[in-house]
C-alpha cells in the first residue's frame, strides 16, 4: 500500500504540538488546485460569443452545477453555488489526478473526506438553526407518522442525521481506496504471472482503469449532490 503513504516534503512545521508539515498529500492538493485554476483561467480569459473549447468546458461545468443545485435544493441555494462548485471541481480533480500513475490520491484518505463531511455537516446544521430556529428539530419528526411509531422513527432519524458525515466521507474514501487497491492487485498479478499469464489481469487492469475514471467522476458528483440534498433539508424544511 505504498501509494497511500504520506510522507513529509521539505522542512518540518510544528504548530502547538501539531505536525503541519507539507506532505505529498498537500503537494497533490496544490497540483489539483493549480490545474483547476489553469482550467478556469483559460476558460474565462476570452469572452467570446461563440466559446472556444476550453471556455465551453468551464461553461458546461457551470451549467452542470447550476442545474444540479436548482434541481435538488431550489432557488434558495443560489448563495452556496460557489461552494458546491468548488467542492465538486476540487474532488473531481483530486480523483482524476490520482488516476495518473505514480501520483497520490488525496481523496483516498479518510481524514480529507472527513474534514469535508464534518464541515458540511456542521455548516448545514448551523444554517438550519439560523433559518428555522428550533423548528429545525422538526427534521427528526416526519409528518404523517402514527404517534406510536414516532419515538422509534425519531431515534432512527437522529441516528441517520448524525451518521451523515460518516457515510458521506466513507463513501468517497472507500471508493477511491478500493479502486486503487484493486488496480494495484491486478497490476501485481500482471508482474507475477509474467509474459504468458499476465495478459488476462492486464486486460482487467485496463478495463478497471476506465471504470475508475468513471468512479472518480461519479463520486465527485455524488459528494456534490449529497451536499445539495443536505442543503435542501436545511433551507426548505419539508419533511
Amino acid at each position: 500500500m505504498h501509494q497511500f503513504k504520506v510522507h513529509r516534503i521539505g522542512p518540518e512545521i510544528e504548530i502547538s504540538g501539531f505536525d503541519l508539515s507539507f506532505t505529498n498529500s498537500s503537494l497533490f492538493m496544490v497540483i489539483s488546485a493549480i490545474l483547476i485554476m489553469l482550467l478556469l483561467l483559460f476558460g474565462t480569459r476570452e469572452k467570446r460569443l461563440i466559446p472556444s473549447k476550453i471556455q465551453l468546458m468551464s461553461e458546461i461545468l457551470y451549467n452542470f452545477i447550476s442545474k444540479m443545485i436548482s434541481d435538488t435544493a431550489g432557488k434558495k441555494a443560489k448563495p452556496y453555488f460557489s461552494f458546491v462548485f468548488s467542492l465538486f471541481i476540487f474532488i473531481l480533480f483530486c480523483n482524476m489526478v490520482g488516476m495518473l500513475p505514480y501520483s497520490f490520491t488525496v481523496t483516498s484518505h479518510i481524514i480529507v473526506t472527513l474534514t469535508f463531511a464534518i464541515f458540511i455537516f456542521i455548516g448545514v446544521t448551523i444554517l438550519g438553526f439560523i433559518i428555522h430556529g428550533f423548528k429545525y428539530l422538526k427534521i427528526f419528526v416526519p409528518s404523517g407518522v402514527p404517534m406510536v411509531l414516532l419515538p422509534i422513527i425519531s431515534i432512527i432519524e437522529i441516528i441517520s442525521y448524525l451518521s451523515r458525515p460518516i457515510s458521506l466521507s466513507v463513501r468517497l474514501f472507500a471508493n477511491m481506496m478500493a479502486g486503487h487497491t484493486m488496480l494495484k492487485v491486478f497490476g501485481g498479478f500482471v508482474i507475477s504471472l509474467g509474459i504468458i499469464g499476465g495478459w488476462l489481469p492486464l486486460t482487467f487492469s485496463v478495463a478497471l482503469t476506465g471504470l475508475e475514471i468513471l468512479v472518480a467522476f461519479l463520486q465527485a458528483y455524488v459528494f456534490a449532490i449529497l451536499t445539495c440534498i443536505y442543503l435542501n433539508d436545511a433551507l426548505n424544511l419539508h419533511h
Partner: protein
Amino acid sequence: MKKLTIVLIISTFYCGNIFAAEAGMPQLDPKYWASQAFWLIIIFSTIYLLIDKVFIPKIKGNIDTRENKIRKDLEEAKIFREEAEKKLIIYKKLIQTASQESKKIVSDSSQKLNEDIQNKKNEIQNQIDKELKSAENEIMKFKKDSFDKVGKISEDIVTEVIKDIFGEDGNKSKISATVNEILKKENVKV
C-alpha cells in the same frame, strides 16, 4: 489448464507476500492527519475564494452576456421580420395599383388610338368624298360642255350640209331643235 491454475495459486501467494510486506492502511495512521486537514483547509479556502470572487462572476457574466445578446438579436430579428412583412404588403399593394393603372393606361390609349384612327379615317373619307364630288362635278361639267360643243358643231355641220344640198340656209331654230332631240336620244343611249 491445470498448470495455469497452479501458476495462479502460486503467484497469488507470492503477491500476497509482497502485499504483506506493506500491509496496513496508512490512512489510519494519525501522524499526518493534522497536516492533511490543515493543508486541505488552506488550499480549499483559496480555491473557494478565487472561484467565488473571480471565476464564477466571469463565467456568469459571459453566459449572461451571450443570453442577452441572443435575446436581443431574436427581438431585433422579429422586429425586422415584421417590418419586412409590412413592406411586403405595401409593395404588393403598389404592384397591384401599378398594374391596374397600367391596364387603365393601355385601355385608354388603345381607345384613344382607335378614336384617332376613326377620326383620321373619317377625315380622309370626307376628303375623298369631296374630291370625288368635285371630280364628278368637273366631269359633268366637261360632259355638258362637250355636249354643248357637240350640239353646236352638229348644228353647224347640219347647216353646212343643208346649205350644200339645198343651196340655202335652213330654219335655224328648227335645226337646233332637231339636233338637240337627237343628241338627247343619243345621250340617253350612252
